[in-house]
């Protein structure tokens, strides 16, 4: 009885009857008596485990399977090995969407992190209205990316406010969304505008852990603002940098809504991304096999970057 009870800090594990014998993370295995107190029943976890196995693992495995077939959604299909992937890498349009996806993801990562960190530093302390300002800067985050994109589509319209301002200061109007050289940048602006507030909030949480006394002491010792940031603030918020950059990269790689609302992938495929191609190939053109191959490629790119980022941030800490 007393062996399994103890204080809450007690590290003696309360082993459930059904699983008695396996000593958790303990380096040795030991037989324990059936405990008197059980925290829940193992089958309580069953519904959650079932849906996750079904909807994440089995479905993903199935998707990976179709990637090597020529299935069109109905009837029979054949295994065609890596044929789908050969087609992807032979098709300039597909290569273009991979490049666009990477451009948007990294541009998004950099823009949101730089602006988000600057905002967080500005709103960390001292400003009287900092709480109100945080609420305002965070506001776009809660909105639907689709709705936000429509607002920006109007701003970028040839007869829209942006060209109106340009005309007012004596510059030529531009076809922001119809110019292949500009459209991708326009998509990036919309993505970054909406999500910077989220990065700001992550950095604010990190900055809250930096002790004000150390900063003050450094300031008294004559350290400049930049040196205080470089040697005190930045090392303390490294975990936040890791979280914010990983999140933004993953979110950037799956960009879909903004492209669909702003350009639909145009002009002439100039803003097509992997996610929009997956949607079009699979669900508009019924090339299930080819679409699955594109989705598998997108998944692999995401996993590779997620793992790389984890490794990079682990080394430093």
């Amino acid at each position, binding site marked *: 009885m007393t062996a399994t009870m103890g204080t809450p800090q007690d590290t003696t594990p309360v082993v459930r009857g059904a699983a008695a014998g396996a000593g958790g993370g303990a380096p040795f295995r030991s037989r324990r008596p059936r405990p008197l107190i059980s925290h829940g029943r193992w089958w309580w976890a069953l519904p959650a485990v079932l849906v996750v196995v079904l909807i994440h693992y089995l479905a993903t495995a199935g*998707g990976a399977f179709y990637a090597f077939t020529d299935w069109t959604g109905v009837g029979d299909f054949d295994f065609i090995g890596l044929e789908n992937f050969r087609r992807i890498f032979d098709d300039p349009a597909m290569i273009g969407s991979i490049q666009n996806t990477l451009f948007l993801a990294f541009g998004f990562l950099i823009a949101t992190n730089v602006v988000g960190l600057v*905002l967080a530093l500005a709103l960390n302390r001292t400003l009287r209205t900092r709480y109100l300002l945080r609420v305002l800067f965070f506001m776009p985050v809660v909105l*639907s990316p*689709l709705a936000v994109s429509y607002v920006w589509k109007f701003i970028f319209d040839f007869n829209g406010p942006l060209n109106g301002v340009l005309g007012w200061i004596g510059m030529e109007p531009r076809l922001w969304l119809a110019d292949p050289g500009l459209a991708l940048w326009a998509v990036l602006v919309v993505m970054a505008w909406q999500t910077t507030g989220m990065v700001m909030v992550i950095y604010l949480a990190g900055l809250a852990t930096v002790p004000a006394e150390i900063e003050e002491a450094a300031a008294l010792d004559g350290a400049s603002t930049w040196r205080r940031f470089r040697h005190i603030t930045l090392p303390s918020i490294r975990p936040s940098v890791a979280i914010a950059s990983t999140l933004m990269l993953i979110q950037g790689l799956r960009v*879909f809504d903004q492209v669909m609302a702003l350009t639909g992938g145009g002009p002439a495929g100039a803003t097509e991304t992997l996610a929009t191609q997956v949607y079009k190939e699979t669900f508009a053109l019924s090339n*299930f096999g080819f679409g699955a191959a594109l989705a598998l490629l997108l998944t692999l790119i995401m996993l590779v970057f997620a793992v790389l980022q984890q490794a990079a941030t682990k080394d430093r800490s």
Partner: protein
Amino acid sequence: MFRYTKMTALREGLVWVAALLTLLPFYFLVITALKPDEELLSTGTSAPPGRPTLENFAEVLTQGGDNNILMALLNSVLITLGSIAGLVAFGSLAAYVLARSTARWGSVTFYLFLIAILLPTQLGLVPLYIGARQLGLVGSVGGMVLLYVGTLMPLAVFLYAGFFRNLPRDYEEAAALDGAGPGRVFLRVVLPLMAPATGTVAILTGLIVWNDFFTALIFLGGSDNQTLPVSMYYYVGSLVSAWNKIFAIVIISMVPILAFYLFAQKRFIQGFAGGIK
């Protein structure tokens, strides 16, 4: 030490300028939605309406069929609430058992959820769509709830598990010593204590479901149960450049979530700052 000086006041002013510039798109959104048709071309795009009107809202709200925004709003509410309910109920139960478990299967199962967070949903969508089509779940509210509960369960379990690990076992053990069974302990002791975690789970997952366009377009596009983003996508596509009507729909789609955000902004911001870690 860090006192409020003239420089700070200047900084505060600059940040306000940045904030107002950032929020400028909302200005265009509101003034354009209030413009009557004839003013759309006659007044400048940055100028407020000469004769503000609510007729755009009346028009887009009274559309029937596929463009029925009120139906879409109802579908969005049902699917979001259903998904949150499923995630809170099954996510908290699973996370509780796993967080309190010291057995090896407990940590193995927990890793099952952790890895699933990293697994992007795109790849699984093709088989899920085919499976749902065979079961007749494509285009149904129930099917969507099941799909969202499944895709977001790893996040819910992860958030709850983090909370339960920091929750002292004292209360549960006291209740158990007094003779309460595991079910009673969970319902009477754990359930009331986990309210903050439930708030985070509900806000984070609810926001993802409410704003989701990709999966909703695939599973609900063209059906009778379209959610707000899907309905908005098709409706806006048919309106070409009637920006006053488009913006009326956009505002209607934004109002519920904005109201909720301003009402519970502290929880939203805390949820994003702490929950995501």
